């Protein structure tokens, strides 16, 4: 809703690579907000719909590590001991976070992108720790012409978003965001790149309020720049 460029970039990149991209319009949310808040019964109907719409795809590409973790890691748990258990496991196996899809599934890192800027990379926690995607985004960034990656000391530290956490404990969430932003500022880069839209929302929201010279951008947008 707020970051259409992310989806558009992914579609354009995949189509350039000759893939057939479909987007079931009925897809809205993976159900994580309810799931993470403890309302598993309320999350299940939302997730069941996702299962239904995606179960026939050859591979599913997900723009955010967080949603990726939900489908890949938590759907099998959410549907454990239900009739949908097997479908959830099958879907989990063919689901990829975007950078992982390119690097692991397709074996592609060169996308002909050009992004002449100094950037730093933020590892979204779900992508990093639930899915183990540390190298993939960096391998992709390494091939972007003109791009200089400067790692920040707190690259792996949580930005403080955490879904409902950001609303339940706004001040803790904000303090965590401040630690992240301070670390990003130390690198004196123009952009903070991540593969998770919700982290970007947190970082940008805080940077804008505090008038920090930080611009959060999604990895797909960088990879789609020419």
């Amino acid at each position: 809703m707020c970051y259409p460029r992310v989806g558009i970039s992914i579609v354009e990149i995949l189509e350039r690579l000759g893939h057939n991209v479909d987007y079931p319009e009925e897809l809205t949310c993976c159900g994580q907000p309810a799931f993470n808040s403890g309302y598993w019964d309320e999350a299940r109907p939302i997730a069941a719909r996702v299962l239904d719409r995606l179960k026939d795809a050859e591979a599913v590409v997900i723009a955010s590590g967080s949603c990726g973790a939900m489908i890949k890691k938590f759907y099998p748990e959410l549907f454990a001991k239900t009739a949908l258990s097997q479908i959830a496991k099958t879907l989990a196996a063919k689901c990829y976070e975007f950078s992982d899809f390119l690097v692991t599934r397709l074996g592609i890192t060169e996308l002909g992108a050009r992004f002449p800027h100094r950037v730093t990379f933020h590892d979204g926690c779900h992508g990093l720790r639930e899915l183990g995607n540390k190298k993939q985004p960096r391998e992709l960034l390494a091939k972007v012409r003109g791009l200089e990656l400067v790692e920040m000391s707190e690259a792996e530290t949580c930005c403080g978003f955490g879904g409902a956490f950001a609303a339940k404990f706004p001040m803790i969430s904000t303090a965590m965001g401040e630690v992240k932003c301070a670390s990003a500022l130390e690198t004196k880069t123009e952009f903070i790149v991540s593969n998770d839209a919700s982290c970007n929302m947190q970082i940008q929201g805080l940077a804008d309020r505090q008038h920090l010279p930080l611009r959060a951008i999604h990895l797909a947008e960088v990879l789609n720049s020419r």
Partner: protein
Amino acid sequence: MSAAAEQFKHDAERLTRDLRHRSLIQTALKKYEAARDAKKSRYRDWQSARQTAAEIKWDAINHLDKYLEEFVGKIEARGTKVHWASNGEQARQIILGIIGEKKARSIIKSKVMTGEEIHLNEALEKAGLIVVESDFGEYIVQLRHEAPYHFVFPAMHLVRGEISELFQKELGSKPTDEPEELMMIARQVLRGKYITADIGISGANFAIAETGMISITENEGNARLTCALPKVHIALMGIEKVLPKLEDLALFLPMLATAGAGQALTGYNSFYGGPRQPGESDGPLEFHVVLLDNKRTHLLADPEQRDALHCIRCGACLNVCPIYRNVGGHSYGTTYQGPIGSVITPHLRGLQNWKHLSYASSLCGACTEACPVKIDLHHHLLQSRRNAIAQRPIWWERFAFKGFGFLMNRPALVAIASKLGRMAQIFHPLVKGTRFDPARAWTRSRELPVIAGQTFREFWRSRRR
């Protein structure tokens, strides 16, 4: 909201705004992180070491009855008296009973977290006894009449100036800014206490079933003195501390040191297998081991979270936790702070009163990654949320999520909602950050993203046309 939740929220809010506190903790823990990484890199295979440690602990905990009986049988055979306590009150009575029988007056303690758990010091002081904490950090917080800030680094929240002032006030010492001199002041005071104390009380890091020993890990030597000089030694420990074999320590001792404090091995790792034996020249004449349940069996009965009993209390999960680093140890209001505390406290003290700790997490998983025995910490927080809601749902939250599910399963409504959102955004500045702002939790400190002129769904539709 429970009183504990109110207190947490209040203290956490206050401390996250305290920039001096934040930078003090972050600096100390970054130092720890650098040391830990350097030591970790020396292991030939840290991940396999973690896996093996997890498997040994799994064996120990899942055959706890067998190993406990083996431990007790072996340690009793060498003259140790073992006591069993189902709860804190029983443990306190057992300890007071031993003290009363010996007509003891003064007690020297080395660090015992289970003692904090059952409020042992308060009980001893109420009985008119003189109790002195001998671990330097514990001694400092005892003088300040406060709880440990961190279960491994109890006085981590204080700088030397504050400790110097405390010593001037409580001990009449001269002001100094040298950590070494401050330590010397405490050393002088405490030396005499070891020799004159009637009873030494310690904890235990591990209990070895095979040989009937407890193992105590420390850097200062205070625990060694506590277990060497007084005539009676009482060790208070949780029932989950058992390891099957003596050689298991070859793995657990270095991992505890590396994960907990960035050391290759802690200064002293000492094993006690009984009171003074025939032919030995020193050591206590009596050795008592108090085994404490205090709801550990409640946690044991939950197979999903049972691995939380694998914990070796290294504190690694606190050290890496971005929540802990910002709210500090006292905000938790628990004996065990940080992620492990947030997982076990609901079991030890009641889920509904302590469920807020499961929600006070961004679920980032840094704790799980750091845990040397692979406790699935952040997923347990998720499960606790689920368990809390299953037990007692919050009606308006459930209503909201039902509504959310209804909306999300009707894409046409989502499309309308995003159009409405775009309109609402125009008027949002009028209420932004005020009491009337529905997004206040977010907008008090952050800007909201702008709903795009064209959503992805709209882009997709326009393309298909």
